[in-house]
């Protein structure tokens, strides 16, 4: 009876989490030759305040570039191979979960550590971001750099594209979560 009750309450707790489909992921690369920006508004994310687990699932073909040619390059087999790996994923845990009060309005600094999977490469990533609690919603913002070579995206220095795309790109994340 106690076990059943415990299992039930754990189950109920697992349901008590935040889901976001209102997101913005920005990709920004800068070199002396060119600045390249792409925006994605179709990412889905969840935060479990009980376990501190944060997940982002990013549909790669939803990155929109100003120039069609850049978007094609971004998707093709030399870059993100999006028809074979349509989604990238970030799964992490909030390290300082005890410092974030999801029931108390305010802005909190969150240290997160986890794994980023892009194409068939997975790397560990430790970053910080902010979580703003307002009533039943959360807003998460974070900015961090990704080294393309860590994910098997490399260019020969003689290629034109090597001059145009930075070896390290800046990713900016904004997401608004509702409690579910």
């Amino acid at each position, binding site marked *: 009876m106690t076990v059943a009750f415990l299992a039930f309450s754990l189950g109920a707790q697992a349901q008590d989490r935040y889901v976001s489909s209102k997101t913005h992921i920005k990709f920004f690369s800068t070199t002396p030759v060119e600045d390249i920006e792409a925006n994605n508004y179709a990412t889905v994310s969840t935060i479990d305040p009980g376990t501190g687990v944060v997940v982002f699932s990013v549909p790669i073909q939803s990155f929109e570039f100003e120039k069609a040619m850049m978007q094609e390059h971004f998707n093709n*087999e030399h870059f993100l191979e999006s028809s074979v790996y349509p989604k990238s994923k970030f799964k992490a845990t909030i390290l300082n979960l005890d410092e974030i009060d999801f029931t108390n309005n305010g802005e909190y600094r969150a240290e997160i550590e986890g794994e980023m999977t892009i194409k068939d490469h997975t790397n560990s990533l430790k970053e910080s971001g902010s979580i703003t609690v307002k009533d039943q919603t959360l807003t998460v913002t974070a900015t961090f750099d990704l080294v393309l070579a860590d994910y098997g995206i490399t260019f020969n220095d003689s290629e034109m594209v090597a001059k145009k795309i930075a070896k390290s790109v800046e990713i900016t994340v904004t997401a608004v979560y509702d409690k579910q």
Partner: protein
Amino acid sequence: MWFFRLSYQTYKNTEMKKRKVIRIIAIIGIAGLLTGGGIGLYMFYKPHRDVQSAKADYILTSSQIVAEYLADNQAANQKYLAADGDSKILEISGEVKEISENFNGQKVVLLTGGNNMAGVNAIFNAETNDNLDGITIGQAIKVKGVIRSGASYDEDLEMYENVILEKSDIVNE
């Protein structure tokens, strides 16, 4: 003397021929450069594909595409997603379950087939947003857009992800 004249004439002829050939090569070369440069510039500034004026590759219901993806994700990706990101253009009919707005001010319509685990999220844009005026929850509609990713159960999110359709608009029949 006649011999000299003749050979001078031959010399003059070959010289003229040579010049002519050089001129032709130069013209071809310049034309080639201009065409190449033109193609290069065109490719660099090539506009995005106009999804709405293109013909749909597949006409399906929301339930059909979701079922196809849940049955075999890889096969569905191979069928619908293109390597250059210009993936298949779909016409999807379904029931409006939810209408929301994303961070880019674009309307997002969730279409389902009733009892589905997942549905199709059709993302409209600045040009097509207004065509959703008057559309209500529960209404059966048909939309057209480009597929960006399929439906699947994600173990980390612990939820089903919807098919994503972008650059969408209503199809009036």
